[in-house]
């Protein structure tokens, strides 16, 4: 059954030939290896001998202290506290499981700690120290130090960790720090060696993130001599690093605290700006959260609680939230028409309570209508039909241009996370976004800040500051870094005639101070602080013709998340303006009832040293205001929260 011998011989010849071929390849590889060995140990020997000598000396990094963050008056917003922890080095420990078991007898270790340690060990080099337990008490740390001889590879360490003394007040502004993740490293070509230190914390969002390069500082180094098992014998040389630069914000911590307390449990946002230089005095999103939880490692329960809250405490509504501006947008529509010369300040429009266009009725908020309306009345009584009419004359392109000029639909670069650009729609935008032609109806909706228009509270504050000054004020959040003042952006004139600006401002004055003004109950009576503003109420739902016929359902009867947003923008004092404020209360109902009173308290707080002076309020409201102010959960002078506050 065997094959014939001839074939065997021929196949044997093939096999031998190929075996020689392979043998040749092997010989070549041996030659390469020999040559490489010769290169390493003969040609390069001197260099490598030097390196071997250096190997007995090990270089360790000293993490720098992170820069501090202060408010404009030097009050501490983010600091560092001492933190005791225990680390283990796999290589020195020998039997890791046994050592950890022993350690668990000395200090309390949770199953979670052990699990995490085991996981981290799989990932890191055997010589890299891994944190086993964090935030120990001094007692526990001493116990570990005492038992050190029976715990090889385990060593106690003292480090610094971030603390935010004014926890909830600055959660959205400062953000928080956390350990470096793989994703953080992904984008960086040559990461700072500091980032490889286990548990090294870097800014994750907010100011901590955007000013990370300034705050981090430069690592110091320690040259140490190590013995055979890597234990430190002595320190040869020590070069201290540079601590991170201190940062000072433009925010006034006390005003910020007042605003946070005043917004209370509402889902709301408020921004206060100094119109003279763009400094942001307070920028508050409510409700807030405690960033210290994130630094320590937030529990699943806490995190889920924050995620599931329908008031969205994690969102920074001041820059990230965008809302239809509603009637607060009317100044922009009016400015566009005035600048183009299509109307004058005396032009009147008849308001019968609605405007008929293309078979559709666009309603004024006042069913009975306003009668003949001029510019000033259109603002003070917030007549919608006036704007439907003039918007058709001026067109969306000019309105959008004016909106952008005043900072709407424009990204304002302050060091915060997830800054939304908002939407200032025009024809091109709609074509690109919805693949549809622009309709006159869209212009009519946009004229009163509804439809496609979306703005953030920060943008509304910028708009107000620009109306108040007539100059292109730019917001600034960082006052100084490392003692060096951040330059204040130049604020050139917006190029709109002063006459027009004056008319718009006097319309806003009438909103607050005219007998029929929509926000007259939120006026300021103190001569020196009299102010101007504009209310806004923006719908989040469509009102059908059938509902309108039956009578529009009032906000109180709607579920919370279907109610109108309440908005307010204003500035004070009317003469020589100093501060601009914007307030948005999500689903708060009417702008005049929900947003304007908050805005008044806030701007009065910004203009005074302590609580708002009661003398500024109309006398009939003083008692009510006084008891409201008394109940606010404000912090004491050292920034400690009142004991009754929600932690």
């Amino acid at each position, binding site marked *: 059954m065997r094959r014939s011998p001839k074939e065997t011989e021929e196949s044997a010849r093939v096999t*031998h030939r190929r075996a020689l*071929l*392979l043998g040749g390849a092997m010989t070549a590889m041996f030659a390469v290896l*020999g040559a490489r*060995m*010769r290169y390493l140990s003969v040609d390069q020997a001197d260099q490598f001998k030097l390196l*071997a000598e250096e190997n007995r000396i090990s270089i360790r990094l000293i993490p720098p202290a992170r820069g501090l963050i202060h408010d404009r008056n030097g009050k501490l917003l983010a600091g560092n506290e001492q933190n005791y922890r225990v680390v283990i080095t796999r290589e020195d420990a020998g039997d890791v499981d046994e050592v950890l078991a022993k350690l668990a007898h000395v200090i309390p270790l949770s199953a979670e700690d052990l699990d995490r340690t085991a996981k981290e060990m799989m990932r890191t*080099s055997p010589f890299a120290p891994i944190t086993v337990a964090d935030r120990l008490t001094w007692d526990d740390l001493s116990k570990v130090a005492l038992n050190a001889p029976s715990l090889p590879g385990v060593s106690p360490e003292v480090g610094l960790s971030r603390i935010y003394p004014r926890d909830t007040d600055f959660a959205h502004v400062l953000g928080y720090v956390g350990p470096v993740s793989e994703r953080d490293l992904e984008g960086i070509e040559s990461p700072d*060696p500091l980032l490889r230190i286990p548990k090294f914390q870097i800014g994750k969002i907010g100011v901590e993130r955007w000013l990370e390069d300034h705050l981090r500082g430069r690592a110091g180094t320690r040259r140490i001599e190590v013995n*055979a098992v890597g234990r430190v014998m002595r320190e040869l040389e020590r070069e201290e690093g540079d601590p991170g630069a201190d940062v000072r914000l433009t925010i006034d911590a006390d005003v910020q605290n007042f605003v946070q307390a005043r917004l209370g449990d509402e889902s709301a946002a408020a921004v206060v700006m100094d119109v003279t230089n763009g400094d942001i005095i307070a920028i508050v999103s409510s409700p807030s959260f405690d960033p210290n939880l994130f630094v320590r490692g937030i529990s699943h329960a806490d995190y889920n609680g924050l995620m599931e809250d329908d008031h969205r405490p994690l969102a920074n509504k001041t820059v990230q939230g965008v809302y239809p501006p509603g009637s607060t947008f009317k100044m922009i529509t009016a400015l566009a028409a005035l600048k183009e010369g299509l109307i004058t300040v005396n032009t009147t429009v008849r308001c019968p309570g609605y405007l008929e266009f293309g078979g559709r009725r666009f309603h004024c908020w006042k069913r009975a209508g306003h009668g003949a309306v001029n510019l000033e009345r259109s603002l003070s009584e917030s007549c919608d039909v006036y704007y439907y009419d003039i918007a058709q004359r001026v067109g969306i392109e000019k309105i959008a241009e004016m909106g952008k000029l005043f900072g709407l639909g424009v990204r304002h670069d302050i060091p915060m996370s997830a800054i939304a650009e908002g939407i200032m729609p025009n024809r091109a935008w709609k074509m690109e976004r919805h693949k549809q032609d622009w309709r006159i109806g869209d212009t009519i909706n946009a004229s009163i800040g509804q439809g496609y228009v979306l703005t953030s509270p920060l943008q509304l504050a910028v708009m107000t500051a620009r109306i108040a000054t007539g100059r292109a004020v730019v917001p600034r959040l960082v006052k100084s870094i490392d003692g060096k003042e951040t330059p204040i952006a130049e604020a050139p004139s917006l190029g709109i005639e002063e006459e027009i600006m004056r008319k718009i401002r006097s319309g806003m004055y009438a909103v607050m101070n005219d007998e029929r003004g929509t926000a007259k109950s939120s006026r300021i009576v103190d001569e020196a602080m009299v102010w101007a503003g504009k209310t806004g109420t923006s719908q989040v739902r469509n009102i059908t013709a059938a509902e309108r016929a039956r009578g529009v359902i009032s906000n109180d009867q709607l579920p919370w998340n279907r109610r109108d947003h309440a908005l307010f923008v204003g500035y004070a004092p009317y003469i020589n303006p100093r501060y601009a404020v914007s307030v948005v209360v999500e689903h708060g109902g009417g702008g005049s009832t929900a947003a304007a009173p908050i805005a008044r308290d806030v701007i009065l707080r910004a203009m005074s040293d302590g609580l708002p002076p009661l003398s500024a309020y109309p006398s009939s409201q003083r008692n009510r205001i006084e008891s409201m102010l008394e109940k606010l959960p404000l912090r004491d002078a050292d920034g400690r929260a009142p004991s009754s506050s929600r932690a």
Partner: protein
Amino acid sequence: MSFLEYRVKYVPTGLRKVLYLNWPLIVLVTAVSAVGWLALYSIAGGRMDVWAGRQMQIFALGAVLMFFVAFVPIWFWRNMSLLAYIVSVLLLLVVEFFGAMGMGAQRWIEFGGLRLQPSELMKVTLVMMLAAYYDWLDVKKTSRLFWVLIPVVLTVIPTVLVLMQPNLGTALILLMIGGAVMLLAGVSLWYFAVVIGGVVAAIWAVMASRGTPWQLLHDYQFRRIDTFLDPTADPLGAGYNIIQAQIALGSGGWSGKGFMQGTQSRLNFLPEKHTDFIFTTLGEEFGFVGVFSLLVLYGLILFFCYVSAIQNKDRFSTLLILGIAVNFFLYLAVNLSMVMGLAPVVGVPLPFLSYGGSAMLVLLVAFGLIQSAHVHRPR
């Protein structure tokens, strides 16, 4: 039954077989192992009980196995090839299965106090299987597509299983072993040209696509390839072993620092100094002269394998011996290239030197097969 096919006119029997063993090979293997004991003794700081003692015990056990295998006629082993192959694949599956249930990547089976890595065993049984296959196959059919695909499948099955462990180094070695036996059996060179051409083109396409709009991998995947190919870019991470290994080798110089005088290994700068990186200790302590002598020993082992293979007129025996020689060479070449910084770090031990039971035992059994083929060759 089938020993008749071997046309052996004379076969030594009983203890007379000892005289017909390939003694130069046995001496060489023992010599290389002895160098390993010295190195392990030195790394442990002059202690036998840490590594060297145990390594000697394993060698003794392996030597007994080697003689046992050598005394059993080669035709018996040929008939066992398919069974051995199937058992190895099953063991790989078992490891895969229990590995998934246990912690992380478990690659071994606990076997009476010894840890057996099925992937090591697989390297030898794959050679046996393919050699037996080509012995059975009509030579005229060697280069026909269908008959070429069968050994390809036989190679790819264990390769995929090993790759899933994941163990890239061993998987590549399995592929190369399979390819080598097929090459030796006389499969048309065109097949090799097409496969190699395809692989080169694929790699070229992936690398050339970098930075262009039709890039085939993500940027971070390219960066991983970068650190894989050039670990020195990351001196405290992936590159640590490589840099320290080169320092150890280089600092040995012409004649080394002397026995037990190496600082690199004794000061614990080399994490895997007693296993995959044991060569560096030799380089540091015995220098270029010592390392070159070791290379000569390895070269001689391969030489004697070759002589034995070419003398042998049985197709199964020839292919088996050459396949095992290739396997041995691949261990060597991959480990040394890695240690000397010519290739990326993949976990491959240095044959007969690295501490560890599995590889040592399997290699000794493989050399037992070579001896059996040598003793029972047709004459």
